[in-house]
């Protein structure tokens, strides 16, 4: 955090000054470690073992916050009889479909009394038509849960609050993690038993009524084939310790750029619409009714039950008067997904000449994306490419100075891609909002006008839309109606530019009818499914409440309390801590004086406190809904997780995760280590792409794995920004970290003859790159399964080109493409490689070196791509390095 979020880290420094203990768990010793109470090195990709062992410790030693767990989580909920755990199936959950390489989620469902419907076979299915995990994965369904849990058909579940029934989530959890011991952690993660107990003691002593612990993560957790499950394990731990919805608790995701949170809320992703509404799938959501059924059930609890109002308001914002009840609010104007159109699948489609054009807006995939070579080759197949960036980044110049020009794989004169380089305004040259990791919208004012032809994104896209509509204005083709019917009229400010507050108001939404017609909505609860409201992103409704741009609130911290509700505006409803009903006990009283935050005030009959209560404000703590009541009225007074279909925090996910209802340890796609728990080596539901240009090193000690014996991990440095587009062109930043380097331990340096300050060549099954060497004790060799495992650290900021002040080989070129099934995130934090002293060969010689390694390792297109390995002869992959 100190390394990549130094400005935010000031608050960690402040907390530490007040006595907070900071523990840093990371493969390498970073600036964060330097400022922490303790650094604990971990083998990249082994986090579920570590976190799962903490879960086991908390359960076995009965250190969980029982009152919280029983009342607020699904610990007492019963799971249906068909469920089978990985412990029973050697690393697979029930429902695995080897043909599709994905799970059917049916058997993970909750049990129900089934009294009202014999067809349900005793389990709580999902709302709408049952969708196979493979299909869900195709549209990265996990992304939809950015503002709440998945839909269930209803919330009539069975609970055993004694937690004794063997099919309660609690008992399943206990059995699932029973083998995750401190000794397993030592042998799998490289974390000593003492260090494990140090962490276990620290977090359990610091959790409960009086104290809370928070976990902070960023892409070190997410960018794995098991990424979403890493965060899930942390969620289980935090729910057990009672650290959710309470001040000082939570799981903090640190985002990598300004407004990355904003770009998922109002998405730049292919698979979701604003506010985490699903993008319709062809064949599944063909009709408006099918779509409404799928996004939420009226019988489930909480505020997602009103998703129809959010969807209609969105469509009314986009298509105005054209959207009517008769035409289903122009639902058919929305494009339908026909498959996974994530960034990596799109690049593979480029290689098949299926993609004509591409926009790169402040993104440099030639350097920043996994498998840079595949990215650049893909770009070379485009007809046109638009790059809007502050500098002539490598993605705009690959056709003349990329690595493939040097190797002869590409020839400039053969590349047909027409590249348009368009100048953008920088962040000080445009107004608008950034949404940061706390979901806080902060308005930024324009300091100076952009120079020359530079334009803000708002201007650019408005103008692009205006010109396209102009060209189409006489069209009678029905497919052009969605564009021509769009509301595309924005007022301009005094400088002639579009007034960005008008866009924020459109996002907020307005009343269209009645006494308040024309007035901004104050809350998303005011949204209606009858077309009487608009709203471009329901979770942002209220940012313009009362006609005031609350994102621009700037009351200094010293003039308000710590919650600081008058600085910026947080979605939803300016709540700073989500699910904060959980900060009070089931009776509505604070768990302790020290941690008082939101509570029930009997005198006024309302929830009150320091923050905006995240609960129906007049629902009493002892309120119990009638049987079958859905929506917000279905929430009992002790259902704090108001966006979950059953109002509870989910230890076990009956729906929503595509690779298992409980996180289970699997090894990364490339790993020198055999999975110590199961025959199933890696995530059986991960997305793999068996292709000749995407080969993998043999794993788990299989023959040939010794050719790529070392683990590498990639990361960022304070001095640079991602792929370098905003830092390698600036002398003051470029000089601070001028060259690409690799970080190796003194032991590895001795083993491979590497010298500090010298050169090294790193070879993976994809390519070879060169880097300067930093020999440092900040890298620690580990003993895993009796063998020494060396990890190599690679900052990924540099790229091959001729425009930047500082250039170098790109670390991400070493990576292949394998994805998590939930959100299609690439595994870029761990891979296998070799390292040797000296610079890499030039020209075609480089290709020969890579091919020689591939040949020596015996890797084939199928290496590493077998999804189900439970049937594999254990001896095949058991000849680990111990015997070698």
């Amino acid at each position, binding site marked *: 955090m*100190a390394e990549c979020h*130094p*400005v935010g*880290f*000031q608050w960690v*420094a402040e907390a530490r*000054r007040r006595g907070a203990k900071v523990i840093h768990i990371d493969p390498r*010793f970073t*600036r*964060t*470690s*330097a*400022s922490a109470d*303790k*650094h604990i090195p971990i083998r990249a990709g082994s986090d579920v073992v570590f976190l799962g062992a903490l879960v086991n410790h908390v359960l076995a030693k009965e250190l969980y916050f029982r009152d919280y767990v029983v009342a607020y989580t699904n610990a007492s909920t019963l799971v249906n009889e068909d469920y089978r755990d990985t412990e029973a199936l050697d690393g697979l959950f029930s429902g695995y479909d080897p043909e599709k390489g994905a799970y059917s989620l049916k058997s993970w469902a909750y049990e129900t009394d089934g009294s009202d419907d014999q067809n349900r076979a005793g389990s709580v299915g999902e709302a709408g038509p049952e969708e196979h995990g493979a299909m869900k994965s195709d549209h990265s369904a996990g992304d939809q849960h950015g503002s709440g849990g998945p839909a269930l058909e209803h919330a009539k579940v069975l609970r055993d609050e004694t937690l004794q029934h063997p099919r309660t989530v609690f008992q399943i959890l206990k059995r699932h993690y029973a083998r995750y011991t401190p000794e397993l952690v030592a042998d799998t993660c490289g974390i000593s038993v003492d260090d494990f107990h140090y962490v276990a003691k620290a977090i359990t002593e610091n959790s409960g009524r009086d104290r809370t612990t928070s976990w902070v993560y960023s892409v070190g957790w997410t960018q794995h084939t098991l990424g979403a499950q890493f965060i899930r394990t942390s969620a289980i731990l935090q729910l057990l310790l009672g650290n959710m919805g309470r001040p000082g608790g939570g799981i903090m995701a640190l985002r990598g750029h300004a407004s990355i949170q904003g770009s998922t809320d109002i998405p730049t992703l292919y698979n979701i619409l604003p506010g985490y509404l699903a993008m319709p799938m062809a064949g599944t959501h063909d009709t408006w009714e099918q779509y409404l059924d799928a996004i939420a059930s009226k019988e489930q609890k909480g505020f997602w039950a009103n998703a129809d109002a959010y969807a209609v308001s969105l469509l009314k914002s986009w298509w105005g008067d054209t959207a009517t009840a008769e035409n289903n609010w122009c639902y058919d104007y929305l494009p339908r997904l026909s498959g996974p159109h994530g960034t990596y699948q799109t690049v593979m489609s480029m290689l098949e000449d299926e993609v004509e054009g591409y926009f790169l807006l402040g993104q440099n995939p030639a350097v920043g994306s996994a498998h840079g070579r595949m990215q650049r080759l893909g770009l070379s197949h485009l007809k046109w490419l638009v790059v809007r960036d502050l500098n002539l980044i490598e993605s705009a110049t690959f056709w003349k100075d990329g690595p493939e020009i040097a190797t002869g794989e590409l020839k400039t004169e053969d590349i047909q891609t027409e590249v348009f380089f368009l100048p953008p305004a920088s962040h000080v040259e445009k107004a608008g909002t950034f949404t940061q990791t706390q979901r806080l919208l902060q308005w930024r004012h324009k300091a100076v006008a952009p120079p020359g032809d530079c334009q803000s994104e708002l201007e650019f896209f408005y103008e692009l839309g205006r010109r396209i509509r102009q060209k189409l204005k006489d069209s009678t083709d029905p497919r052009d109606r969605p564009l021509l019917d769009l509301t595309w009229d924005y007022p301009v400010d005094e400088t002639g530019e579009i007034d960005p507050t008008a866009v924020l108001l459109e996002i907020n939404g307005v009343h269209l009818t009645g006494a308040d017609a024309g007035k901004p909505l104050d809350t998303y609860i005011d949204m209606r499914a009858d077309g009487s409201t608009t709203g471009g992103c329901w979770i942002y409704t209220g940012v313009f409440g009362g006609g005031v741009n609350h994102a621009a609130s700037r009351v200094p911290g010293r003039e308000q309390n710590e919650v600081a509700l008058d600085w910026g505006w947080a979605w939803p409803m300016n709540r700073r801590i989500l699910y904060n009903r959980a900060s009070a006990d089931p009776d509505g009283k604070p768990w302790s004086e020290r941690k008082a935050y939101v509570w029930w005030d009997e005198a006024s009959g309302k929830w009150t406190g320091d923050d905006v209560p995240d609960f129906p404000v007049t629902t009493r703590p002892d309120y119990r809904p009638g049987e079958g009541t859905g929506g917000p009225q279905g929430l009992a007074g002790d259902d704090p997780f108001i966006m979950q279909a059953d109002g509870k925090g989910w230890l076990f996910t009956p729906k929503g995760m595509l690779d298992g209802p409980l996180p289970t340890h699997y090894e990364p796609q490339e790993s020198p280590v055999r999975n110590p728990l199961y025959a199933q080596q890696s995530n059986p539901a991960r997305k793999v792409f068996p292709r000749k240009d995407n080969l993998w090193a043999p794993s788990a000690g299989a023959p040939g794995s010794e050719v790529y014996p070392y683990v590498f991990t990639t990361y960022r*440095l*304070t*001095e640079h920004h991602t792929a370098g587009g905003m830092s390698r062109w600036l*002398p*003051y*930043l*470029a*000089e*601070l*970290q*001028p*060259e690409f*380097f690799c970080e190796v331990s003194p032991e590895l340096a001795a083993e491979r003859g590497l010298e*500090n*300050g010298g050169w090294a060549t790193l070879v993976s099954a994809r390519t070879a790159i060169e880097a*300067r*060497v*930093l020999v*440092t*004790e*900040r890298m620690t060799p580990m003993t895993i399964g009796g063998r020494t495992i060396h990890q190599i650290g690679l900052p990924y900021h540099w790229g091959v080109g001729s425009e930047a*002040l*500082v250039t170098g080989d790109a670390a991400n070129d070493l990576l292949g493409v394998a994805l998590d099934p939930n959100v299609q995130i690439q595994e870029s934090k761990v891979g296998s490689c070799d390292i040797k002293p000296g610079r890499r060969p030039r020209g075609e010689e480089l290709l020969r070196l890579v091919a020689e390694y591939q040949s020596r390792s015996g890797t084939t297109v199928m290496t590493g791509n077998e999804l189900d390995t439970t049937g594999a002869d254990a001896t095949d992959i058991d000849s680990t390095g111990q015997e070698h």
Partner: protein
Amino acid sequence: MGFWKNQLTGPTDPATDAAWDTGKPRKGFFTDTSICIGCKACEVACKEWNAVPEDGLGLLGSSYDNTGALGASTWRHVAFVEQDGDRIATARESGRRLVDLGMPALRATAEAAGGSSDGSGVTDLRGATPTERTAVGQRESTGQPFQDGGSAGVAVAEAEIPDFRWLMSSDVCKHCTHAACLDVCPTGALFRTEFGTVVVQDDVCNGCGYCVAACPFGVIERRPGEDTVKNAGIAQKCTLCYDRIGHDQTPACAQACPTTSIKFGDLAQMQDAARERVDVLHDLGYPEARLYGANENDGVGGTGSVFLLLDEPEVYGLPPDPRVTTAALPDMFRKAGFAAVAMLGLAAASFVGGRRR
């Protein structure tokens, strides 16, 4: 004589000595390296504000430090020091000895103690026995060490010594009470401001370079490069953002520092804050914490930039016991005077003798 003596060595208010009567308090930095996260925002902010050019694009292979040292085009420099457990133990031991010496810790000058005159006062003490240390500590002397251990005792329970640590520290011009650069400047380009800081006037400096040799910290340098480079050939260093503090603004580096590792304010307050912080760290069990430059009896009369260090100064690339080159001036004049008188005497004697012959 006292007035002149104070202008060359010992405690004084340099702005008053420079004939300022604005009554402004002396300004300075307190750099608390114990909370530095090494983000280098200070380096960048300094360059942005002062339009200091880029200073080379080479990898030094020295941890995360690719700046190397202060110089004409580097007015803030963040050092990165990687240490193993043995070195941390040594740092703690040396810190503990400083605390044992009491506050202010005393150092024997070559004259007073009759010991070595290599200037490494504190290092001298490291090998000394407790008795010797006491003996040394009791002596009054003119020069005192740069480091001091603060006023509090060491906590009973010391913090555990980790296997490894990564020290980060942002260095800057010390704005000495007795600034050798200023004293030797023949053109008056270097001057003492009303805030007690030392600033180069770019348009007056003739690039003679006397200041470069004079600075006991190696801070000031002439900027290399062709005429196209701004102020090429001219002596350059930190101005303590003279153009900002004159308008009640915080210097760029302190303003940019996210963790308040760099603090700016009235020097007296900075010194107090530094002493409080060192006491806190001692109480927390870190006797290795010590101050650098907060002792007005040291070789430069104390500095305008005070540091809290977690190891000996050399570890951070700081001189352990810098002395202003002009501190010896009275003595040199005195000796030169003796020599002149003696020579005159001899000359006279030779004439006298000659007559006798």
